[in-house]
């Protein structure tokens, strides 16, 4: 389970393009294409080289003026989906390296 203290980064095993505000991601291991909507693409951009999950939630709250609890629930669920598809890597706060 992903927590706000965790650190999220993009997987190395993919190629992506952000075109006209839409992220298109191709994962290397299964060669499957994934597309993200506007908010998903914004989250993808914010992840960039890596970000603390709590900071990501705070930025989404600020940019989209949504309730913090709602944002946390939605972002964590979305990150869970990306993790399952091998698109992002989550590093726990207590993990080494």
């Amino acid at each position, binding site marked *: 389970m992903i927590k706000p203290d965790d650190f999220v980064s993009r997987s*190395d*095993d*993919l*190629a*992506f*393009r952000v*075109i*006209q505000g*839409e992220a*298109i991601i*191709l994962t*290397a*291991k299964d*060669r499957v*294409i994934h*597309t993200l909507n506007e908010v998903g693409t914004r989250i993808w951009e914010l992840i960039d080289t890596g970000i603390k999950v709590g900071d990501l939630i705070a930025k989404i709250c600020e940019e989209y003026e949504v309730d913090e609890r709602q944002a946390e629930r939605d972002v964590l669920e979305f990150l869970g989906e990306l993790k399952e598809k091998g698109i992002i890597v989550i590093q726990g706060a207590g993990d080494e390296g």
Partner: protein
Amino acid sequence: MIKLKLDREMWQFVKNKKRELNLDIGGIGLTLSFSSPSFLKSVCSYYHPFINDRVGEYSILIEVDKERYKRELINLGLEELPPDMPPQLLKRDNETLVHLQGAFAIIGEDGDVGYALFKDINPTALDSLMRILFSRLSLRHKGLLIHSAGVRMGGRGVLFIGPSESGKSTIAKLTPPSYTVLTDELSLVVKKNGDFWVFGTPFAGFSRRFRANFGVPLGALFLNQKDELNYLEPASLPFSLKEVVSNSLLFETDSTRIEEFMGTAEELILSVPCYKLHFKPTRELWKVIADDKAR
């Protein structure tokens, strides 16, 4: 685990016997060396328009040996693929193992030779292997093998892109006689001197009717959308990229190659106009294509 080794003596024997087939698609050459003369004979007519005498940049030894196939399958820790299972790609050190129905092949990442072992003479499995090899070679030439019908209209080529049942063969069959169908199944799109060109391939659809061995500069991409009316709609760049990527053959697992693939697809959609082609299967659909002034 015992690694499958290329039998160089066998290769030399085959070369001496001149059991070789040189294929060329859009300037990309591949040489097949057959241990079995019957296998070679069985595929000659299939690849006929694409056979030439130039030795390819990549060569592969095709061996048929049922007993060895069974033995090596066990050695490699593999089981026979169940029917209808698509080819599997397994990365091992600096090689890729391609596991097909009744065959497998070892293809080097950077080298120029490969080795395939077939259970028996199987042109269908060979064709799957050829698609895999050409898709990999194409990528190294800034090219893609795209599920599409390719048609020459005057001095330009157009592609009708879509998966199975999206209307590629239907569009090809309805093509006016003044145009030439290059393929109704898989087109090779490759960058030459700064422009993308479209070439026919031997990888034909069910009809096996359209297999033209020539190319023309690419003028436009049409993304097939079956509909009740015939009309064109400009396609957004994200949609176009998604369609090109999802309809192109990709048999790479290396992230550098995946990035090259994505880069080539992006360059392609940025280089020519892309449209959603809404169509119903009548000759009228060609009117909207011919009327379009973008090409």
